[in-house]
């Protein structure tokens, strides 16, 4: 019985936004059209049942983050959308160079502010913004780190505007998370949608663990031949615990908690069944404040007393270094294009979203004059909180924002409303356009390497621009094309 299937893309409209699956996109070798026709051939019902099965898989495998309400711990999956996004080889080349430039700038900036402070003396970045920053760490002053690398693991949040141009929205230089979903999403696509991937030449993502371990070994104390790397986690109740497990397993290193480590004679050891064993590099997924109760928060039981002392003696390496938070907050973000130009004499390969710095009179005036058109963000918050979206705010909300701006201009930046690109996304009502962002991950030891693609987050609510998992975001697999589509060939990018 041949009933012509309804085109699942019926009702899909990207509107004025950029869409990577639009037909006839330059440089995709027909991949977008192929994906759309394959999805149409599968039909909406098959798509839905496979997507449901994939999400059940995620839950049973425990690829979850944990949400705590009053008394209950609830395991949630990051909702997964099965329609991938496409990045062409040329686009990736730009992103790859751009991310590496960005990470190099973050490291150069950190090296400078914790040593000679040229950039402050030259007045490129305001002194108080750095020295008065809550994330500035005196302990880091004049302390050299191997290869000048402070940010070993970085996640750079990037969006595409209406024309498809990439723009950096935020830098994450402390303990960025999400990379486990990049790899797990690919596994999931290979299991659930092998027919969608057939013949596609996609850059593989499964060597992240090896790359990370190699970088972490590079930064270990030089005299150690076979360094012991560990991943330091707050433990099973942390919402990102799955990712910690994932990374420890991919690297083949122990996942430790603070209570597994101790410091003796400024050396770090872990407690094993055979007694104390030395530790040489710690990939820590614990914030600066909690690392060492003897120096920072004395009430922290997550950390290890004496850890910073051992680090300063050069007996153990920490990734990321302490004090990187001064480089990635929204206040410094606004200066990143100037920082890149200052150190490298070149323009940012990936521009910022146009940003008005309200501590500068011109920036404040512009923001106040165009409040209803701008997105106003506090510089200290993360996770999408405290943001006012001008075009969607009530006049009362705008007035409150105006008052807050005038009371403390230095706490705010503003940006034009960016028409974030969209991707076709499986929704209740069918395949619909939803806004996307992208977080590529860079690993840096001696040199930087960027995992092809990155975490694509999707705002699942209609019209929403907020992709954070804490606020209803999901994720998609991100395909970086490495060559022409080959009909009849097997899927590339297969996990080895």
């Amino acid at each position, binding site marked *: 019985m041949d009933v012509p299937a309804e085109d699942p893309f019926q009702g899909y409209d990207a509107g004025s936004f950029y869409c990577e699956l639009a037909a006839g996109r330059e440089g995709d070798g027909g991949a977008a059209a192929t994906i759309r026709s394959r999805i149409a051939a599968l039909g909406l019902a098959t798509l839905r049942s496979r997507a449901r099965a994939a999400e059940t898989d995620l839950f*049973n*495998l*425990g690829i979850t983050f*944990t*949400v*705590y309400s009053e008394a209950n*711990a609830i395991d949630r999956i990051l909702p997964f959308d099965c329609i991938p996004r496409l990045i062409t080889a040329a686009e990736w080349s730009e992103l790859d160079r751009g991310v590496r430039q960005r990470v190099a700038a973050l490291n150069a900036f950190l090296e400078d502010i914790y040593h000679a402070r040229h950039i402050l003396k030259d007045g490129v970045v305001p002194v108080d913004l750095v020295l008065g920053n809550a994330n500035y760490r005196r302990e880091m002053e004049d302390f050299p780190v191997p290869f000048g690398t402070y940010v070993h693991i970085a996640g750079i949040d990037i969006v595409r505007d209406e024309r498809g141009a990439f723009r950096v929205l935020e830098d994450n230089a402390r303990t960025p998370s999400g990379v486990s979903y990049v790899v797990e999403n690919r596994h999931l696509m290979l299991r659930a949608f092998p027919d969608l991937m057939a013949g596609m030449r996609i850059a593989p993502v499964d060597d992240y663990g090896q790359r990370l371990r190699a970088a972490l070994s590079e930064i270990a104390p030089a005299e150690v031949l*076979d360094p012991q790397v560990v991943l330091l986690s*707050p*433990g*099973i*109740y*942390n*919402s990102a*615990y*799955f990712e910690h*497990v994932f990374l*420890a*397993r991919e690297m083949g290193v*122990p*996942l*430790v*908690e603070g*209570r*597994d480590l*101790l410091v003796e004679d400024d050396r770090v050891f*872990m*407690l*094993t*069944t*055979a007694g104390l*064993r030395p530790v040489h590099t710690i990939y820590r997924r*614990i*914030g600066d*404040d*909690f690392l060492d109760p003897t120096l920072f*928060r004395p*009430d*922290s*039981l*997550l950390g290890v007393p004496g850890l910073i002392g051992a680090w300063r003696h050069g007996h153990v390496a920490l990734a990321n270094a302490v004090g990187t938070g001064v480089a990635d907050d929204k206040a410094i973000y606004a200066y990143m294009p100037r920082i890149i130009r200052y150190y490298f004499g070149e323009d940012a390969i990936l521009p910022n979203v146009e940003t008005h710095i309200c501590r500068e009179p011109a920036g404040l005036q512009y923001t106040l004059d165009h409040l209803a058109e701008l997105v106003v963000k506090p510089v200290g918050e993360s996770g999408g909180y405290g943001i006012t979206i001008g075009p969607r705010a009530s006049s009362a909300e705008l007035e409150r924002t105006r008052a807050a701006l005038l009371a403390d201009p230095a706490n705010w930046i503003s940006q034009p409303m960016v028409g974030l690109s969209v991707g076709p996304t499986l929704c209740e009502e069918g395949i619909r356009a939803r806004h996307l962002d992208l977080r590529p991950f860079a690993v840096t030891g001696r040199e930087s390497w960027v995992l092809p693609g990155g975490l694509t987050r999707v705002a699942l609510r209609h019209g929403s621009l907020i992709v954070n998992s804490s606020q209803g975001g999901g994720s998609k697999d991100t395909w970086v094309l490495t060559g022409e589509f080959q009909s009849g060939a097997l899927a590339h990018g297969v996990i080895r």
Partner: protein
Amino acid sequence: MNLAPPLLARYAESLFWMARYLERVENLARLIEVTYIFESPGRESESWYALVRINADEESFSRRHGAADPDAIKRFYLIEADNPTSIPAAIEVARTNARVLRPLISTEMWKQLNQFHHALTAIAPAELEGDALSRLADRIRAGVQAQTGITEGTFFRDQSWHFLELGRLIERADQTTRLLDIKFHLLVPRAREERRLVELTQWGSVLRAAAGYHAFRRIAPVEFTPADVVAFLLTDASFPRSVRLCLDEIERHLTALRIRYGLGGTRAALERAEEIRALIAGAETERLSAGGLHAFLDNLQHALIGLAGEIGTAFFRDWRPYAPGQEQVGQEQGDREPARQGQRQEQAG
């Protein structure tokens, strides 16, 4: 290639307790099944109360439910997750430990335990009624056995495997003593011939609950006596749930840890195992089955607790001072000190 990667003390502890709690779940299901079969008409409450007594739960049960009532006892062990000796509580502890061990255990082990946990924390009251109870007990047993099989087939056998097996075997030996002990608490008629028949049926059911009935039949005399059953469950060298066989295996694992991984801390535990071996070897089953079995089993349980204590002291307990009640400050919501649920105070039966 690092042939003997180090094992975190905390992992060893979690492996030991994960396995113990899983084994406990299986055996509790066996005990429930045997109780269900023994339930004497008109005296159901007394029959079910045996379960409470061999788990030494008299006090906490009466605090919750007052008088012994079969339905309350079933709920107490099968549904009430806040009763620490219930099946849902045990599976919760097992899963929490498995969560700690996720970097170490196979994905298949985690997946099975995760699904099993979901099933056991959703037991409906209707499943405790009538013959549904027997099917439920069956499912629970099969769930743990699936876990054991997946572990056998997928878990990497470095020293971590030995710690897991030690936990499983110590718990199994302990549970076999409890299964035997249940006979002590069961009611028998006063008339002599009737009593003999009822007793034989009861011993047969104890054997069935331990999955040993057919093996016992093969090796025991046709006219078996209670002493034969006691000897079989305590000292048989081939029956997988006998205390003797568990002990053989425990010694094998301790020796492997000592020789292959150079863990000298196994010395004290090996000595305790030797003492238990002597205790069983010297058991006069004829005399015990006529009276004094309960006291003997009590001794044996204490000796097993001592053995577990030696392993804990050498490899995980007291390796860092633990301050109960100290609040942990988390860097984000949900960062809490993981409960050391594994370190439940062991009670003597």
